[in-house]
C-alpha cells in the first residue's frame, strides 16, 4: 500500500513537471518579445544574448509610432476585420436559418456543397480572385480586402447547428400569427442566437486581424491599405539596419497585445466556437 502511494506521488510530480516545463516554453517567446522591445539596439545585437534590458527603454514605444504609420495599419486592420465580421455574421445567420428551418428544393445538396468548399485550399483562389478584383477595379480599395471573405462556409455551418436547436413550435406559432419569414428571422432567430453570433464574430475578427497572404498580395500595389501583419512584416526588410532593428520587436508588441487582451476578455466565446469547430484559423 505504501509503495503504491509513493508511486502515485512520483507520477504526480512528473505530471506537474511536464506541465510547468511546457508552460515555460510557451511563455518564453512572449516574455522575450516584451523584454527585447525595451532594449537598446546594442543590447539586442550583443554577442551574449540578454534576457532583460539593463534599463528599460520605454521610449521605444513612442519612437516606433513616429517611424512607422502603425496607426494607419491599425485603422486598416480595424476597418477590414470589422467589415468582414459584420458581413459574415449577417450572411451566415441568413444562410444558416435557411438550411436549418426552411424547406426548399436542393437544400441537402446545397448544404453539402457549402461544407465541401471548406476543403479547398486558399492558393487555388489567389489568381482568379485577384483577377476579379482587377476587373472590378477594386484593387485600390478596401473592397478587395473585404468582399472575398464576406461569406464563410464555416460560419454557415456553425449558425445552422445553433439554429437547429431552436424548437420549430416557436416559429410555427409566429407563422400562425401571420409573421413572414423575414420577421421570424429578425424577431425570433437573431435574438435567440446572440451568443452564437458573438462566438462567430470573435473567431472571424481574430482570423481576419491575423490574416496575411491575401492582404500581402492585394496591398503590394496599394500601400495605403496595408493591414498590421503586412505593414509590420515589411519592417523586417526596411529596418534591417542595426539602429532600427529593435523597433521591429516594439512594433510586434503593438500587433500582438490587442489580440491577447481581446482573447482574455472574450475567452468564453472564443473557446466555445473553437471547440465546436476546430477551424481556428478560418
Amino acid at each position, binding site marked *: 500500500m505504501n509503495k503504491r502511494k509513493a508511486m502515485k506521488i512520483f*507520477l504526480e510530480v512528473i*505530471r506537474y513537471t*511536464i506541465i510547468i516545463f*511546457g508552460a515555460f516554453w*510557451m*511563455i518564453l*517567446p512572449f516574455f*522575450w518579445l516584451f523584454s527585447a522591445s525595451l532594449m537598446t539596439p546594442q543590447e539586442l545585437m*550583443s554577442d551574449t*544574448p540578454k534576457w532583460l534590458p539593463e534599463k528599460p527603454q520605454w521610449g521605444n514605444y513612442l519612437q516606433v509610432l513616429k517611424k512607422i504609420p502603425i496607426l494607419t495599419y491599425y485603422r486598416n486592420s480595424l476597418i477590414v476585420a470589422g467589415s468582414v465580421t459584420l458581413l459574415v455574421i*449577417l*450572411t451566415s445567420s*441568413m*444562410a444558416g*436559418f435557411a438550411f436549418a428551418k*426552411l424547406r*426548399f*428544393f436542393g*437544400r441537402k445538396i*446545397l448544404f453539402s456543397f457549402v461544407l465541401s*468548399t*471548406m*476543403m*479547398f*485550399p486558399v*492558393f*487555388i*483562389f*489567389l*489568381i482568379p480572385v*485577384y*483577377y*476579379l478584383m*482587377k476587373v472590378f477595379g477594386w484593387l485600390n480599395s478596401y473592397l478587395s480586402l473585404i*468582399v*472575398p471573405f*464576406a*461569406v464563410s462556409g464555416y460560419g454557415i455551418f456553425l449558425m445552422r447547428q445553433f439554429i437547429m436547436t431552436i424548437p*420549430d*413550435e416557436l416559429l*410555427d406559432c409566429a*407563422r400562425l400569427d401571420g409573421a*413572414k*419569414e*423575414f420577421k421570424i428571422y429578425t424577431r425570433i432567430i437573431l435574438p435567440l442566437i446572440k451568443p452564437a453570433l458573438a462566438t462567430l464574430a470573435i473567431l472571424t475578427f481574430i482570423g481576419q486581424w*491575423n490574416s*496575411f*497572404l491575401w492582404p*500581402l498580395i492585394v496591398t503590394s500595389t496599394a500601400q495605403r491599405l496595408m493591414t498590421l501583419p503586412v505593414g*509590420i*512584416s515589411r519592417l*523586417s526588410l526596411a529596418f534591417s539596419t542595426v539602429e532600427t532593428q529593435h523597433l521591429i*520587436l516594439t512594433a510586434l508588441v503593438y500587433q*500582438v497585445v490587442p*489580440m491577447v487582451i481581446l*482573447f482574455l476578455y472574450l475567452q468564453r466565446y472564443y473557446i466555445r466556437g*473553437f*471547440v465546436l469547430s*476546430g477551424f481556428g*484559423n478560418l
Partner: protein
Amino acid sequence: MRGVFTLTHSSKKRKSLEKNTGAGYLFLAPALVFYSLFFIYPVIFSFVVSTKRWNMLVPLSRARNVGFSEYSYLLKDQMFLGILGNTLLYALATVSSTIVIALILAALINNAKLSVLWRFIYFTPVVTPQVAIGTIWGYLYRPNNGLFNSILKIFGIKPVYWLTDANVALISIIITAVWAGIGGSMLIITAGLKNIPQDYYDAAKIDGAGPFRQFFYITVPLLSPTLLFLTATGFIGAWQVFDLPFTMGRNAPARSVMTVSWYVYETAFQSLRMGRASAGAFLLFCVIFGFTLIILWLFRRGGIKGYE
C-alpha cells in the same frame, strides 16, 4: 391541449414544406451569389489558366494555349518536386506531432490544479498572428546571439544554424508550428475528454488498470472521432501553410523551406507565370484530395463507427 398542439404543428409543418421555397432561396441569395462568383467561377477559371501561358497583363482570351505542358513540366522539375516534398513533410510532421503532444498534455492537464491557467498559457499562440510568431522565433533562432543557442551553450552544445542550414531550417519551422498549434488541439481534445464517462475509468481502476493502461485502452480509443477530426482539419490547414515559412525562411538556403503556397505566390505575383502557378496549385490539390480520402478510409478501417 398537447394533442391539439401537435396536430396543428404537424399539419402546419406540411404546409410550410411547400410554402417557404421562395423564402429559402431569398435567405440563401447572398451566399449563392458569393459562391458562384468567388468559388465556382475561380475554380473553373484557375483550371483554364493552368493550360495557358498568361501574365495577367493581357486579357485571358489572348493568352497562348499550352495544354497540359505546365503540369508535365512541373512533374519533371526537381525544384517543384522539392517544394512539394517540403509541404508534405511539413504537413505530416506538424499535424502528427501537434496531435500527439496535445493529447498527452490535455490528458495531464485535465483535472489538474490551475487547469484554466495552463490552458490559457498554451492557447495564447493560437490568437497571435503567425507573422509575429515567425518574426519572434526568427530572433530566438539567431545563430550567434539567439536565445536558443545561448541555452545550448550552457550545456556545452555547439551552435545550431536553425534557419540557415538547409537540413535544419524546415525542422526549425516545424518546431515553431507545433509550438503555435498545440493549444488549439489541446482545447478540442479536452472537450472530447470531458465526454468520456467517468464510469469507464472507475471500472478500470477496480480491475487494477494503472494510469498508462487507462490512457491507452480507454482515453485514446474513445477519443478517436476527435482525433480524426483534428487530423483531417489539421491537414487542410497545414497543406496551405504560408506565413511561417515566408517570415522565417527568408535567409534559408535556396528554396529549402519553400512550400506550395509560397511557390504559387511567387510564381504568380512576382514572376507573373499564372499558368505555371495554377498548375502547381492544382497538383497539390490532387495530392490533398487523395490524401484526405486515404485518411478517412484508414480511420474507418480502424473500426470507428461513431463518426458516421
